[in-house]
């Protein structure tokens, strides 16, 4: 028998000024099944909530309807209050008589009557509500960290240090990401590798971290706490367990003219290679797209012959392993636009027009020039360098409307490094705005301008062309009445835009997470849930979400790690029970589901799968659909889709919705 309690809130004057709450409470008390009805000034206040709690206990209520504001506002409040009084929170419903009634209609009988009718519908619905218990899902306390850049490294170390297993997947032969390529870091100018490599080594040596370098995620199935990932371990052709990294192979490899990715093409590497001397793990791999043995069908094999440890095996194949994990941290990083993206700057034809990352390699002590700034074209030290900020960024015409965030700072850093290394040199920076909003950032830029005498010109560069071995940079100075400026430069550095990885879209699809129109991965909420995605258990760290500098990437890595450890702090995960389920009944029917399985493609979360019902002898007696409660997000599309109502959704069951509709009762 229903004993519903009805609580009508005045919301101060917000409701009471147009709705006669007292009379609603009185008429509500006459609805069959309502055993308690009261109106009060502020139902959400402490005394208001106590009224609900007391009534639940005193009148043994088995359902509560609070007629007040929108359930989107206070449903959790009142459900919690009910739970505190011992009533299952899902037996509480809210009737929205403020946003949908008192605020949108004038004072009058009509409005009061509408408030009553809204209330009546909810009373009828709540009569059909059932107790729901939160769903418990076991949690596999292993995290996958996708990407071994600084954000991934930070996340992996934090999770591992919290005592959980971490599987790190890195597509390149070494972890380190973009940060390993940098020379010095703003605003303190400490050496990037000096601060990063200890972390990289820590990852490699951490007992809780398993590193899969030269590997890619094939697919991810399952749901929060219970993911199943398939990882493709690309064939390295070198057994890292045997290899001693003596270096014979790469020094003798005959294929020597491959542009070195790590040095942004400024130097060459061999087909068997370690990407950089501090690589972690420091073991070579064979680039099969370049190796003569693979390109020319078994000719060559020099490395194999020379390897003192016989670590080289041309026969190894890509291996796919399956791992279980409870959470995924996506830290796949970013790419930059290369100079060939800019027609006005010569489509990358001028060797001395380089991008910021190339400048980093030039300035790096371990770089191709051992830290000397030399022109790529002839190796001369440039006497004049022009830096162009916002190359591509904030440019709607180029389809990149956003600010790449780090260019202002690294351009200042580049100019400063150049001036430190070559005091006589002239440095010009073309900029639109200087965005130096971080700790010590603005001071750093000021220092560049004031102490290091870098010439900042506010304006854009319209064109660069070569003339007599010089690069003529034509631009305007908007601070000097848009006067045209022409600079004869020896080198031009473009602070090119940061863009999402080319495979960002396919990664997002593999992970079933969203991405924005620039293909950066989407966070669940831009402000309040910046490291979560819309898919439970998958978190974002670093520049895969948006352009970020190192401190931000690191803090996001830590944030994602803390989300993961929060998730792993319980053996079981509690989920909202408002999920769909396929009915079950006794034999010989077992379920009214006939197993047409047409509902499977309807589910946006791939939560519906085929299930075989077996009898005691293990024989399949019926094939039906099964909704995985861990994956279901409760949209109910399958419920409306199912022809014979075999699927239902808790909290919005067919019976509840039917009754609510019939209670319209005009």
């Amino acid at each position, binding site marked *: 028998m229903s004993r519903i309690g009805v609580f009508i809130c005045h919301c101060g004057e917000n409701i009471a000024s147009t709705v006669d709450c007292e009379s609603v409470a009185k008429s509500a008390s006459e609805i*069959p*099944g309502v055993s308690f009805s009261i109106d009060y000034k502020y139902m959400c206040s402490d005394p208001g909530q106590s009224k609900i709690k007391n009534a639940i206990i005193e009148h043994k209520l088995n359902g509560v309807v609070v007629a007040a504001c929108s359930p989107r506002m206070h449903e959790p409040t009142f459900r919690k209050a009910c739970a505190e009084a011992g009533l299952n929170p899902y037996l509480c419903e809210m009737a929205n008589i403020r946003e949908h009634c008192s605020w949108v209609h004038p004072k009058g009988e009509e409005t009061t009557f509408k408030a009553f009718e809204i209330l009546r519908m909810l009373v*009828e619905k709540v009569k059909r509500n059932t107790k729901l218990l939160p769903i418990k899902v076991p949690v596999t306390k292993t995290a996958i960290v996708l990407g071994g850049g600084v954000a991934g490294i930070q996340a992996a170390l934090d999770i591992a240090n919290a005592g959980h297993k971490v599987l790190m997947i890195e597509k390149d032969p070494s972890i380190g990401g973009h940060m390993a390529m940098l020379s010095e870091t703003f605003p303190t100018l400490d050496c990037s590798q000096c601060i990063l490599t200890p972390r990289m080594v820590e990852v490699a040596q951490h007992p809780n971290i398993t590193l899969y370098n030269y590997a890619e995620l094939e697919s991810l199935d399952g749901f929060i706490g219970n993911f199943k990932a398939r990882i493709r371990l690309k064939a390295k052709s070198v057994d890292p367990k045997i290899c001693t990294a003596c270096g014979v192979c790469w020094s003798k490899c005959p294929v020597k003219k491959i542009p070195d990715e790590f040095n942004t093409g400024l130097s060459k590497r061999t087909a068997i290679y370690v990407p950089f001397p501090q690589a972690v793990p420091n073991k070579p791999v064979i680039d099969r797209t370049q190796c003569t043995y693979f390109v020319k069908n078994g000719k060559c094999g020099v490395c194999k012959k020379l390897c003192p440890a016989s670590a080289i095996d041309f026969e190894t194949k890509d291996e796919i392993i399956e791992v279980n994990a409870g959470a995924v941290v996506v830290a796949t990083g970013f790419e930059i636009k290369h100079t060939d993206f800019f027609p006005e700057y010569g489509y990358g034809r001028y060797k001395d027009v380089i991008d910021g990352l190339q400048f980093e390699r030039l300035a790096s002590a371990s770089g191709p020039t051992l830290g000397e700034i030399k022109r790529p074209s002839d190796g001369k030290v440039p006497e004049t360098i022009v830096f162009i900020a916002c190359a591509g960024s904030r440019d709607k015409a180029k389809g990149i409307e956003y600010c790449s965030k780090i260019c202002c700072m690294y351009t200042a850093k580049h100019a400063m490094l150049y001036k430190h290394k070559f005091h006589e040199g002239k440095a010009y920076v073309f900029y639109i705005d200087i965005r130096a909003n971080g700790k010590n950032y603005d001071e750093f830029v000021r220092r560049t301008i004031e102490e290091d005498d870098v010439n900042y010109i506010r304006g854009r560069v319209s064109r660069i062309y070569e003339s007599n071995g010089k690069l003529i940079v034509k631009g305007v100075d908007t601070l000097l009445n848009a006067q045209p400026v022409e600079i004869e430069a020896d080198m031009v550095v473009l602070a090119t835009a940061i863009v999402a990885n080319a495979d960002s879209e396919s990664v997002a699809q593999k992970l079933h997470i969203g991405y924005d129109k620039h293909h950066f991965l989407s966070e669940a909420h831009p402000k309040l849930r910046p490291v979560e995605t819309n898919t439970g258990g998958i978190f974002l760290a670093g520049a895969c979400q948006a352009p970020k500098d190192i401190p931000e990437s690191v803090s996001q890595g830590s944030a994602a790690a803390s989300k993961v450890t929060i998730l792993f702090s319980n053996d079981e995960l509690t989920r909202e029970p408002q999920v769909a389920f396929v009915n079950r009944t006794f034999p010989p029917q077992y379920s009214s589901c006939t197993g047409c399985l047409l509902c499977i493609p309807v589910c946006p979360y791939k939560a519906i799968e085929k299930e075989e019902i077996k009898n005691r002898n293990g024989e399949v007696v019926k094939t039906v659909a099964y909704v995985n409660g861990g994956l279901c997000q409760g949209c109910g599309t399958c419920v409306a889709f199912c022809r014979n109502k075999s699927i239902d959704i808790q909290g919005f069951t067919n019976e509840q919705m039917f009754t609510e509709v019939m*209670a319209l009762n005009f």
Partner: protein
Amino acid sequence: MLNKQIHYSNQQLQSWVDGLIYKGKTVIGPVKKNGVTCFSEIKNFNELILNERTVYSAKEVVLPKYDILFKFAKEKDKVFISKNENSLNNVIVIGLRPCDNEGFDYLRLFFKSDPDILQKLNTFISVTIACEKKFDGCFCEELGIDKNYSNKTDVLIKTSENGYDIYFNDRGNEILSPQASDVKPAEIKKPVPNVSIDNKVAYLKKLSEQYNSEKWKIVSMGCLGCGSCAFVCPTCTCFDVQDEGNTQNGQRLICWDACGMGLFTKHASGHNPRPSQVERRRHRIMHKFVYTQDTEGKISCVGCGRCIAACPAHLNIYNQALQILQ
């Protein structure tokens, strides 16, 4: 007892029926609706279709496909109930066939303890047309029903040379109100003991011995489990009681139900004592030919053949019974 007789020409028959309608009687007869012959109220003689067997039997007059027993409504703490009164006073059903009358006769036995329906059955005046020919699938004669005569009707119309011979009893007299001079006493046909039919009925009863026969499986193969046979049958009486409405008001209805449907015997527990069409088909055949011999003293199939025409697989209930007995 159809103890009187009168002769009508075509014209006279028509003006009599039109006269009844004119007098405010509710006349129900076979008409064509959407290409389907069925019993419905007529407004003029020409609507009548007298040379066809109706798809749905005349039981609809007494037992419509759904009927409201009563309505209820709630106001404050009071519940009001209003009983539905629909008597068949003033109703004349024309164009019945002898089989329909046999059907009504069975219904009278079946509903002997339901005063409401019994009253309905006994109120309306029946006008029967004797069949000259067999219709598709008819087998009434096999069951001892005279297709040319029925003493269970108030008026019997038989085609004769240049018109109709009309036999009637006292109730029929009321609606015919003939001129005394035209009326002749009719020869009263008394039921003649028919040994072969009695033997056949006894033979059909032997079906109960075949209750566990394997042949039921073969017989039931064609049955798809719809309710068309029961819904067209003149002697199928099963109904389902349904409450419609909400907490404020609603009504209690009786609706036709059919033993061929899977839900018919399904218990609330989920158990179904007739789990498959084998048991359901067996029940139907046994009910028509055996069970009612025990309960009402006669077989309840009247041989009208409507179910054969309506069945998606055109299963012949009588042939199937014989097939089991073979």
